């Protein structure tokens, strides 16, 4: 697909994109009309089908992706100016060089030219592609207006690390991969560089703490402990601090920042940028306690000390390849190498001493020792490129085929250009050496499809002389924390029917961006969205989890966004540690029901009305309309179902309710009530629903079954009104007991 700018089009007007509406199939739903960024579609009032104006069309194909009936085709070029790519830094010698490799826009002219490429789509897919959901069109509009303060304001609504994310995010699989130009097969707007331009030109504002904060210390101020000072911890701490909470952060390392501090080399993320968030957070009043390791057994004490705890300690257990010779000297993990290399590469850091400590002796004029890096992901690339800067040679091997590999294409290019050798379809078979590793035996692998596990081929392995082996295949969560935070780490997966607002936006349409590796960008975004919402649900009462600790190894922006989401959920739920009075009496109640003939819905409405009369904030929704936002925003969940079955056979909750219950997240800390409506007998309906809710961590305090007699026209104390009154009275008391307070079964 060609990319044409307006000047080219004016000189050759025949190459405009041609939009055609298949009037036979156009149902006049206006999905294209309301989303067209160029206003090139409108309705014919007589035939009530969409009419296209090809002269206004820019070829973004948003209409093609969003039409439910595939009734629109666009042929021809994309009408957009070419993207400006600033040259990358290429120093003559990389030895000891820490200068930033990727460049940002240096002038307003460059930034404005790029900002003009943004279509400001009415339904911006880039926003869905961004894990933090930055309002990309709005901040780019601010750049167009040369209003950097407004741009920061827009970014601040969703991100506290714009300067960091602009540098370390893989935009090709996120916002830029989901840019409408990208989805149309063109070159996306340089969203990352524009974000970086904003942060480079005007420093990120510090957290704005509410006036008078700290004056009520020990009073009703929410006290939150955060375990881990990485991106998730930063996100949570920032959000909580701005809401007026007392925040204490416990960090195992001597310096805060986690991965930002030791994991990402300076040539990608300069020290100054990486240290900025904690400099500002500490100045704003966060109690940062470094060199303080929190073990799983310590969480109980921490929960007693704070109203809530956010577990954001990452996934720090390096994966190790179990091959013969892996125990030899000279086999290290990526974490220790990167920590040491980062320090060694700093001015006066002792580069040669660090190499010597690894058993690598850099001679004068000889061939430098080879560092074999196992893996070809972000970490492996950082290890290899750091090794090059230490004066070593680097070879990365990955057992995936290159076309299916997880390596970022841009990072792979940079690494290869810097002299890193990267071989795909190879795996380490064994290591040999006299006490210290000397040779690596690499076997070939084959992989037919991205989802297949590569097969090791029976060929003679290739022998490579190595000086050091760095295992950089990734990390995993500390299994000890899974016991104290049930359900973690979660592995978000996309199955079932995605939110139709996502489908309607066109971000899930195939073919999606080719720059997003193995998965279409929409599916990647949906997976991230699941992780984001998972952060809003506490796996244990008052214990929230975010970042890698929640979803396993992920990215900086995901961790930060999850930290913010966990903090927002925490602020919304207002938990209190034992012995403290809960602020305010009103609870947010969500009455969810599945109704077939309308009786369960009527009962739900009656319950909701009574609870509202008791000054609780109540929502009553059919279960198919209950999303994570509704669930996360509720303190009390009341679940109602009709009773399905044949009088005595297979009697239980409605199948839809059973499926819905099975898909619920953890509901720790939430109070629950259950009711069902039946014609003959509810039998095991209530216990079945209760079992599931309790397994999810909810406290079920009331349950009731309503037969035809209790669902009359007048409210009775035995009917839904009575149930709701009893439930309200339980909610009015502090400290809801785990035992059933109200139990009425037929």
């Amino acid at each position, binding site marked *: 697909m060609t990319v044409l700018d307006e000047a080219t089009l004016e000189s050759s007007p025949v190459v405009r994109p041609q939009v055609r509406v298949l*009037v*036979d*199939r156009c*149902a*006049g*739903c206006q999905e294209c*009309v*309301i*989303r*067209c960024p160029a*206003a090139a579609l*409108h*309705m014919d*009032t*007589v*035939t*009530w*089908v969409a009419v296209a104006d090809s002269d206004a069309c820019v070829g973004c194909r948003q209409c093609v992706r969003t039409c*439910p*009936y595939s009734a629109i*085709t666009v042929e021809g070029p994309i009408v957009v100016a070419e993207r400006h790519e600033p040259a990358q830094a290429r120093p003559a010698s990389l030895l000891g060089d820490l200068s930033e490799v990727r460049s940002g826009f240096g002038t307003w002219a460059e930034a404005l030219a790029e900002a003009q490429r943004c279509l400001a789509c*009415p*339904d*911006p897919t880039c*926003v869905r592609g961004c894990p*933090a*959901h930055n*309002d990309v*069109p709005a901040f780019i509009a601010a750049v167009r207006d040369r209003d950097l303060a407004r741009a920061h304001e827009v970014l601040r*609504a969703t991100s506290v690390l714009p300067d960091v994310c602009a540098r370390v995010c893989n935009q090709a699989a996120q916002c830029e991969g989901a840019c409408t130009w990208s989805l149309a097969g063109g070159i996306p707007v340089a969203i990352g560089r524009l974000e970086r331009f904003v942060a480079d030109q005007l420093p990120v504002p510090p957290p704005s703490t509410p006036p008078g904060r700290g004056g009520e210390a020990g009073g009703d101020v929410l006290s939150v402990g955060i375990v881990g000072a990485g991106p998730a911890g930063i996100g949570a701490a920032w959000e909580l601090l701005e809401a007026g909470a007392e925040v204490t952060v416990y960090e195992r390392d001597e310096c805060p920042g986690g991965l930002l501090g030791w994991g990402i080399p300076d040539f990608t993320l300069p020290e100054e940028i990486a240290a900025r968030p904690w400099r500002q957070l500490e100045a704003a009043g966060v109690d940062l306690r470094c060199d303080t390791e929190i073990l799983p057994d310590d969480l109980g004490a921490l929960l007693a000390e704070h109203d809530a705890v956010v577990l954001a300690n990452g996934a720090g257990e390096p994966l190790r390849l179990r091959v013969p010779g892996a125990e030899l000297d000279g086999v290290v993990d990526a974490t220790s190498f990167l920590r040491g290399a980062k320090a060694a590469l700093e001015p006066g850091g002792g580069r040669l001493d660090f190499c010597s400590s690894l058993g690598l002796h850099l001679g004068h004029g000889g061939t430098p020792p080879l560092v074999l890096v196992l893996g070809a992901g972000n970490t492996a690339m950082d290890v290899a490129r750091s090794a090059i800067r230490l004066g070593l040679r680097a070879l990365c091997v990955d057992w995936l085929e290159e076309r299916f590999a997880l390596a970022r294409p841009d990072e792979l290019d940079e690494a290869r250009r810097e002299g890193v050798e990267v071989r795909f379809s190879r795996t380490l078979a064994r290591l040999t050496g006299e006490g210290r590793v000397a040779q690596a035996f690499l076997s070939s692998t084959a992989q037919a499809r991205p989802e297949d596990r590569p097969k090791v081929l029976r060929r003679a392995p290739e022998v490579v002389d190595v000086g050091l082996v760095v295992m950089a295949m990734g990390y995993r969560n500390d299994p000890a924390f899974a016991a104290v935070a049930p359900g973690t780490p979660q592995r978000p997966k996309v199955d079932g*029917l995605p939110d*139709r*607002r996502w*489908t*309607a936006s066109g971000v899930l349409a195939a073919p999606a961006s080719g720059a997003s590796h193995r998965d279409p960008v929409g599916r990647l975004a949906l997976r991230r969205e699941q992780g984001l919402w998972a952060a809003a649900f506490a796996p244990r009462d008052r214990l929230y989890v975010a970042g890698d600790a929640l979803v396993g190894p992920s990215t900086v922006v995901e961790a930060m966004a999850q930290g913010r*989401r966990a903090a*927002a959920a925490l*602020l*919304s739920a*207002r938990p209190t540690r034992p012995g403290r009075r809960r602020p*305010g009496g*009103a609870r947010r109640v969500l009455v969810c029901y599945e109704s*077939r*003939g309308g009786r369960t819905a*009527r009962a739900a*409405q009656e319950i*909701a*009305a009574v609870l*509202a*009369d008791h000054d609780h*904030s109540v*929502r009553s929704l059919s279960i*198919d*309309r209950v999303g994570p*936002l509704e669930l*996360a*925003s509720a303190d009390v969940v009341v679940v109602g179902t009709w009773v399905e079955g044949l009088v005595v056979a297979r009697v239980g909750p409605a199948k*839809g309710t059973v499926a819905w219950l099975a898909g619920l997240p953890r509901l720790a800390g939430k109070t629950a009530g259950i009711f069902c409506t039946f014609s003959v007998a509810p039998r095991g309906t209530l216990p079945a629903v209760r079992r599931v809710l309790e397994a999810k961590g909810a406290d079920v305090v009331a349950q009731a079954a309503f037969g035809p007699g209790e669902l009359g*026209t007048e*409210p009775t104390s035995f009917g839904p009104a009575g149930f709701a009154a009893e439930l309200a009275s339980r909610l009015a008391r502090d400290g809801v007991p785990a035992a059933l307070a109200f139990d009425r079964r037929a």
Partner: protein
Amino acid sequence: MVDPEARMAAIVQDEIAPLRDPLPTAVHLRGPERAGLAERFAPTDPLPGAELTAHPRVARVVRSRKFQFLLILPNQIIFWTVIFVGLLGTAVPGLNFGAAITWYVWFCLVFVMMVVVGRAWCAMCPFGGFAEWVQRRSFFTRTQKALGLGRTFPEPLARVGFLIPVASFLVLTWIEEFFNIAGPGNPADTSWMVVGIVASALAFFLVFERRTFCRYVCPLTTLIGTVGSMGSVAGFRTRDREVCLTCRTKDCMRGGTDGFGCPWYTWPGSADSNLYCGLCSECYKACPEGNVGLFLHKPLTSVVAPRRRRADVAWGIALLWGLVLYQQFNATNAFAAAETWLDAHLGFPHYPNPIDYLGMIAAGALAFAAIAALIAKGVASPAVDFARPGRFLERTSRFRAFFVPMAYGLIPVMGADYFARQLPKFFQHAPRVVPAVADIAGLSSTRSSVYRFSIMTNGWIVVVQVAVVCLGALAAAWATWRITSKELVPISDHKVAVRVATVGVALACGAAAAVLYVLMHAAD
């Protein structure tokens, strides 16, 4: 008792620090266009009181995912029986269940359903139903992944709309006449025809998405769609158009938790006739707002009221009209002489000769088109600019401005004519279904009194046929009068002449069909 809904309205929602989803903040959809909306749909929107699903029991039945499955299942059983009995049963057509049920009863009942309900047959069709079960990998549950390639029907073919199914109907009818399948002739031929339809449907369902076969290929879809528009069931429509316009998910089109996206490419929010409503109820199940209902409307509303008239539908009606006239004419003495002459000169010694088959159908259609063109030339106002360029379905012209509405007005008489043609088989032989059923167990013979029983004698059948056609002609005249008054009078200089001419054409068509029945009877 306090109205719970009124109390709910007073409930303050989200008054305490809610979690916020940042996505909606960034979404700034344009407002949907509403200009002319009310006038566009007011004539075709059914009255709220005409909603069948307002009744809880009906709502419960239609809401059930088993609703369509239970409609399809009996027909599925019958037509697989037709296939097997046709192939393995007796060769006597009247005693073979496959041939007897198909040609003595089924086709006639389908017409009754069309005229009364619309696409009722489509909702219970075992051919599309079977293929859809395979495509969805489910009998009735909502599945997420379809089996097959899921392609969209090629745009160039979709652009001719109903003309492909009309062509397939003409081909199928020619095959049926050639092999005397519907006579009925050899029962195995009936089975093979059904197998062919099932196999075609299955192939299309596995290659293309949704009900592409039913919408674009099925031989019966034009006939059912057009004749069905006389029916009193408006189909699934929106209760509140504003809700549909502002709906952000369009679950009725894309598929929701409980329902598939519309298999017929219809949107309840803009439906103005029952032409493309397959009555499958998926939109009713899928709508998260509960804003879809099953409505009734007055008979002929979908013929008279819609503002959007389609050229493919009009040509389809004209060709179907040509076909039914051919089928009547070929039973007259005049046709026998003409055919003998044609067969001798064209070297095709078998009925039906494709040249005279297609020639006469085309002649019937073109004659109607020519009359429309003459009326247009005679009465159209020169002040009106009729011409709008475009492709087949989009362009307009003076001829189309008259031909298309007039063709819609022809629907009642065309439908009545097809129905009348089925009556002899029904009245004479429908009772044979009983011995045909018994014959499956080997308990019957052609000597059975039921086998020889006729509901009506030939003479009375002709009377009924003429009466049916006359009724159709009167309905066509009324529909044409309404359509003319609404659409043709404003673009004509001669208000009375256009009414007289168009209504006269409708009545003349009815008279021609009625006369042909008399001639057919005389030939017998």
